[in-house]
């Protein structure tokens, strides 16, 4: 996706301390190869994912929630009653 640019990050900002922790981190987490790729063709998985419906909240749930909010806004005294029945 992006060509490696080893000099683009500010070398001048590095102190011996940060340089050392950088080296330790690099040793602990080897770099990913530039030619790494998926082990299989992912297109069938993408098609399956596209076919799967996302989780949707039914419209009447939204309407009910909206109605409750409107009721609470119009009649704040009704809030304890609503909470009692929840």
């Amino acid at each position, binding site marked *: 996706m*992006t060509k490696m640019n080893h000099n683009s990050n500010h070398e001048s900002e590095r102190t011996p301390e940060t340089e050392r*922790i950088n080296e330790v981190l*690099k*040793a602990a*987490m080897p770099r990913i190869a530039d030619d790494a790729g998926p*082990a299989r063709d*992912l297109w069938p*998985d993408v098609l399956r994912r596209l076919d799967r419906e996302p989780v949707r909240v039914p419209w009447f749930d939204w309407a009910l929630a909206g109605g409750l909010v409107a009721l609470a806004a119009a009649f704040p005294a009704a809030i304890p009653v609503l909470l009692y029945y929840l």
Partner: protein
Amino acid sequence: MPESSKNVLDRFRQGDADAFEVIFREHQCTVFRWILRIVRDTGTAEDLTVETFWKIYRAHARFDSARGFEPWARRIATHVALDWMRARKPEREITPEMESMLAAVNTGDPGIQAEIRVKTAQAFTRLPPKLRVAAVLAVVEEQPHKVIAESLGITVTAVKLRVFRALRLLRKDLEQQGIRP
């Protein structure tokens, strides 16, 4: 950009499924690699690549061809990877197999022992995900700060700050374990 690519991107923006497949075939490896650089696990990177392209397809109408496909895809991929990291418990990210692999890998620096490498990798997984992403891309993968900033939707200064904070927290964690890097 060749005219044909521009046409494909324009058709994709209009929701053309064939154009989407062409784009997928062209960019799946680069998107996969970008995610792999963040999550460090091939199987997870494959799953998240699928999730990323699903999100890309759903957001096709918001694609701005003037700004290029790759930065846009990279940004979506980064957020998919970040969501995955946030949902995952840190201690599950270093498996015993990964530990033995880390212990066996030859880093070229004999001063850094296998035990330190394993503990560093474990300590790194305990950092907040947004710090880890910045640090792994900047320090380990040596990606330009500007590219990281674009992919995270933050400034270059914020990237540098996150890297600095990540390294400081990492050093503190290691020192608490008696390791002085």
